[in-house]
């Protein structure tokens, strides 16, 4: 007989698990399963880039966020190690790589993102490249860097910077390779990027900009990487023992698209996290949702957003009609810098402009994204003490009016814009 659940959640991460929790707060009886292709219950991805994970041999007790008993206690079937390969929205069924078919009444897609693979390498070389996205990959990194000296990190975004900081703290020699002329180019302007480059240099990390890996040397283990400078054409052999790639992420959406669910870079939803197909919702890193604050579809990839999405999707699956309206942010203290991202940080968009606040020289700098005369997002370096003010300015949709010039000056108190008449 076909296994059938009233609520079926695909993806056992924070979005999916929070949704299951929210469903159970209201519906104690409806059959409920969380299905995921990782062989683990909910764990913290954040811990994977912390030194504790490696110092405690991959088993710090902050890793797992639910005990194994939580699932049966709440009447939740946890189906680990199962990969969904097909979805039939007519018959309300999913098919799994294991050959099983499962029916659902309401479905949540909380399938996260996947790391982009390093291009242009032969299959045998590609096998030796490591990634830091899930627990098994973190364990592989742990095995590879035990006693090893030199790690080459490819990429210049969030995970790459986390890795550079982590490996430095673990006393490894770190080499950073990026294909662009500067760090985090998709989000940061030149000044912000400069903070990152200088912090890496200060921390003893060797940098190769405008470069890519052509080839790796060594058979079962890497002994060196040959990197080529795109500007000069110069090729350099860099001895290293491990290569970790962190060159962005993508959503693996083939079977979702084939099922007729509208997708762009993520799964498109309305502000209630509902897809175009009845009885199917999307939440977390994979959801490109209609953001009521910026008035457009956005896709974020942070813990707070994924958890909050899970809550809203869960209550909507039991029949409520809640909208998601939240300004999420993430902050990280790495390489001696306090870096924060809040709201819509993308530099793209014709109707959007960036106002700089502070400067490199003053060691504190923010890029405020402004649209329609109000702040809709920001990137901040060493300005974390203004984070709560910026979140309030975004959430309360405060018009900047005549203050647009003044907010460039870091001495201008952003809190003063949060007066009662403005709120």
């Amino acid at each position, binding site marked *: 007989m076909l296994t059938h659940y009233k609520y079926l959640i695909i993806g056992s991460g924070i979005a999916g698990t929070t949704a299951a929790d929210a469903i159970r707060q209201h519906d104690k009886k409806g059959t409920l399963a969380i299905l995921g292709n990782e062989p683990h219950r909910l764990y*913290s991805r954040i811990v994977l880039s912390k030194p504790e994970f490696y110092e405690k041999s991959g088993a710090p007790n*902050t890793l797992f966020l639910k005990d194994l008993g939580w699932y049966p206690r709440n009447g939740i079937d946890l189906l680990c190690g199962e990969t969904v390969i097909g979805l039939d929205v007519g018959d309300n069924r999913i098919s799994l790589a294991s050959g099983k078919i499962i029916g659902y009444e309401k479905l949540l897609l909380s399938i996260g993102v996947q790391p982009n693979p390093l291009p242009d390498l032969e299959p045998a070389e590609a096998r030796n490249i490591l990634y830091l996205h899930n627990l098994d990959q973190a364990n592989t990194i742990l095995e590879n860097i035990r006693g090893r000296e030199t790690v080459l990190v490819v990429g210049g975004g969030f995970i790459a910077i986390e890795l550079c900081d982590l490996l430095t703290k673990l006393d490894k020699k770190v080499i950073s390779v990026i294909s662009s002329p500067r760090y985090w180019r998709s989000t940061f302007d030149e000044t912000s990027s400069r903070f990152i480059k200088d912090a890496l240099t200060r921390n003893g990390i060797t940098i190769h900009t405008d470069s890519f890996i052509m080839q790796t040397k060594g058979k079962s283990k890497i002994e060196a990487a040959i990197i080529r400078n795109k500007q000069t054409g110069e090729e350099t052999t860099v001895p290293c023992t491990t290569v970790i790639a962190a060159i962005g992420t993508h959503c693996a959406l083939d079977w979702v698209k084939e099922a007729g669910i509208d997708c762009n870079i993520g799964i498109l939803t309305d502000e209630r996290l509902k897809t175009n197909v009845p009885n199917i919702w999307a939440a977390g890193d994979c959801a490109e949702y209609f953001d009521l604050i910026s008035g457009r579809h956005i896709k974020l990839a942070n813990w707070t957003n994924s958890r909050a999405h899970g809550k809203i999707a869960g209550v909507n699956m039991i029949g409520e009609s809640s909208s998601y309206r939240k300004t999420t942010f993430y902050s990280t203290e790495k390489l001696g810098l306090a870096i924060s991202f809040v709201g819509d940080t993308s530099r793209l968009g014709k109707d959007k402009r960036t106002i700089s606040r502070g400067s490199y020289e003053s060691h504190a700098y923010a890029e405020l994204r402004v649209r329609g005369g109000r702040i809709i997002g920001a990137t901040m370096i060493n300005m*974390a*003490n203004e984070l709560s003010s910026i979140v309030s300015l975004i959430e309360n949709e405060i018009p900047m009016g005549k203050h647009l010039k003044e907010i460039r000056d870091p001495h201008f108190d952003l809190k003063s814009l949060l007066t009662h008449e403005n709120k």
Partner: protein
Amino acid sequence: MRTNKYTVRIDKEACIGCGVCNELAPKIFTSDNEMKSELRQDAEIDEKLLLKAAEECASGAIVIIDNETGEQLWPKND
């Protein structure tokens, strides 16, 4: 912060400001200017909620020490 039973500390560098602790135990946690967790001055410590918040914190930033035994209850030092 020290109560009769526990000493509680937030590791600010580790905290990502996700707000989970505040949501689970609003009488214990609030947030500061950096949106990081902060212990309320007038916190009413409910032991169960405090431990639950610490266990659900994705960055292991809530440190709890038992005053009597000196043992670190969370994160456990095993």
